[in-house]
């Protein structure tokens, strides 16, 4: 098991988290916490898999996944933006709903094999660069490359464009944004929807590119929640989210890969598949999330950067302190 292979696999696996985390960053930057990422990813995963299976076209699967995630996110949008529901509970409900719906729609899909997958590409020239080439640019899924493009675009959009400025204004000071003539509700709906699209895409990335297949509600396996944790660690920045996504992608891959190794540094591998010690290995990504969220929270307190000021709060025109 050489490090380049692990890192390359980690980058691929991290793409799942990347799409979901950047989607959540968009939603949260507008002031709407959406804890339904896990549910939206599952719906996206099942939509992608079943459409790709029936049509034979994986791209239609990707489109269906994004649409499904987006539509589901709008339910959360209506609840939290217009009906002013508690964002935490509505997000949890979204996860329950998405999980249940995905299981209903995915009935019988788990026996299906050989779904048409998205193509893998090797980029000429850059793939020849030592170390970086084999990790980032050799035999990766197209979606991985899409992820590379999304990170700087999201960063530029949020930090360097007018609509991005409006997005931040709505999330930090909705009353001021409203006074400037920015539609607070409209902006929030748009970015909640974008979050849903990207969560759906993350789901499609699982079933059509990185871990092909449908494994019921085990398919997403907590990655939606990890993405939510990553957003805190990333302090709502797409660049830091990319770093976190690759880190966790690598951890997820490592946990799988090391179980196939017989000998480590001359000793028998205690974590070989079939040994009960592997369960401690399985804990690793989830424990790491707690660790990075603790680090992120500490740093946020120290540097006085934090969540968007209006995160979690419904906006009501003319209400004090909104």
């Amino acid at each position, binding site marked *: 098991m050489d490090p380049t292979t692990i890192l390359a696999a980690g980058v691929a696996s991290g793409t799942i988290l990347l799409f979901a985390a950047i989607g959540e960053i968009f939603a949260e930057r507008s002031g709407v916490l959406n804890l339904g990422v896990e549910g939206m990813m599952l719906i996206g995963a099942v939509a992608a898999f079943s459409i790709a299976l029936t049509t034979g076209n994986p791209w239609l699967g990707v489109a269906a996944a994004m649409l499904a995630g987006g539509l589901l996110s709008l339910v959360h949008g209506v609840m939290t933006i217009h009906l002013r529901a508690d964002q935490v509970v509505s997000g949890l409900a979204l996860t329950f709903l998405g999980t249940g*719906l995905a299981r*209903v729609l995915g009935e019988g899909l788990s026996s299906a094999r050989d779904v048409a997958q998205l193509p893998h590409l090797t980029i000429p020239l850059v793939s020849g660069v030592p170390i970086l080439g084999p990790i980032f640019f050799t035999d990766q899924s197209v979606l991985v490359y899409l992820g590379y493009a999304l990170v700087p675009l999201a960063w530029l959009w949020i930090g360097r464009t007018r609509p991005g400025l409006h997005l931040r204004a709505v999330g930090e000071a909705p009353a001021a944004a409203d006074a400037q003539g920015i539609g607070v509700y409209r902006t929030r709906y748009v970015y909640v929807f974008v979050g849903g699209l990207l969560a759906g895409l993350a789901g499609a990335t699982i079933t059509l590119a990185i871990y092909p297949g449908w494994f019921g509600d085990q398919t997403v396996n907590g990655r939606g929640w990890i993405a939510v944790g990553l957003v805190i660690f990333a302090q709502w920045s797409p660049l830091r989210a990319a770093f976190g996504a690759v880190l966790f992608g690598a951890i997820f891959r490592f946990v799988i890969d090391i179980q196939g190794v017989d000998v480590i540094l001359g000793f028998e591998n205690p974590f070989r598949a079939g040994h009960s010690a592997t369960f*401690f290995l399985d804990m690793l990504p989830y424990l790491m999330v707690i660790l990075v969220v603790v680090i992120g929270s*500490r740093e946020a307190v120290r540097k006085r950067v934090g969540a968007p000021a209006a995160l979690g709060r419904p906006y009501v025109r003319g209400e004090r302190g909104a």
Partner: protein
Amino acid sequence: MHLRLEPRIDAPRWFTAVVTLGALAFALVLSGLIIWLVGGDPVKSFGHIVVAAFGSVGVISDTLVKATPLILTGLACSLAFRMRLWNIGAEGQFLLGAWGASAVVLAPILPAGTPAIVVIPAMMLAGAAAGGLWGFIPGVLRARLGVNEIITTLMLNYVALFWLEFWVFGPWSKGGFPETEPFPPEAWLPRLTDFAASFPLLGGLTVHLGLIFGIVVATIMWIALERTRWGYEIRLIGDSPRAARYAGIDINRKIIVVFVISGALAGLGGMSEVAGVVHGLQDRISPGYGFTAIIIAYLARFGPFRVILASILFGALILAGREIQPSGVPAMIQGIVLFALVGSDVLIRYRIRFDRRLATA
């Protein structure tokens, strides 16, 4: 015409009840519609649930058995949610409780042959302690370091499941199967059917002492919340943290205490499940009780006695839902119910006004 939401100071209780039941009815109709859309027969599905869960004394008893872990985890969530503390980790705390209680018998902490009068309280204590520890971690991280408790409790759910699997597949495995040796009868909670020798009518009824735990805990929690200063402070923190701070309440301390109690209650639920129903430890001991508990807490609007009623309802759904096709239907219904409840909140918190004049924008 323009729609306007006007905050209500206080909604009458009957109105809250009507809206909640209305939301429940709406959710069931919507679920039926989806079942119909995916090719099922909603009338048959719901009819099946009613008959399979309440059709005879025997199945009512089975429903109550399913409701028991839900009551304890539901109370765990209600207590935390009342303070607006998002303990989404009742599932993990339940699993740890089941593990802790099992350890008393399997480790073994108490030697074989110890009478039930010692074993059962020891298991209760161990289960509650293990669950409480699993609640303490997110509690202390939130109170001392300001770490979001939703993420930590969720992650600890996964960690708890793997911890349980380690013991069930590893040290405590019975011949390599994912289950342990059955507990000796001293570690079983008494069931109604155990008294069938004296009262033949009770034969086959599997309701166990855990249900009494639930009722007792609900009563204590109601008294604590509604009739003590401690409970008043929790409600105050939940309704207005700022007012609570001005009143000099040590919120951080309360966060830790409430998290530990919440975890201990869910842990007791795990103990009641292994000692009352399974009589051993398995990896698939919970079909998501700790997650259903979140919905139950919401349906009950955090009222301890209402948690019991809501648990019976969801116990019926879980019991009867096992045979419903497609298999995801019960989970989907739970999601729709929670959404309907969350959405219906708007009617309780706001009065909806229709202004005939144009909005002056």
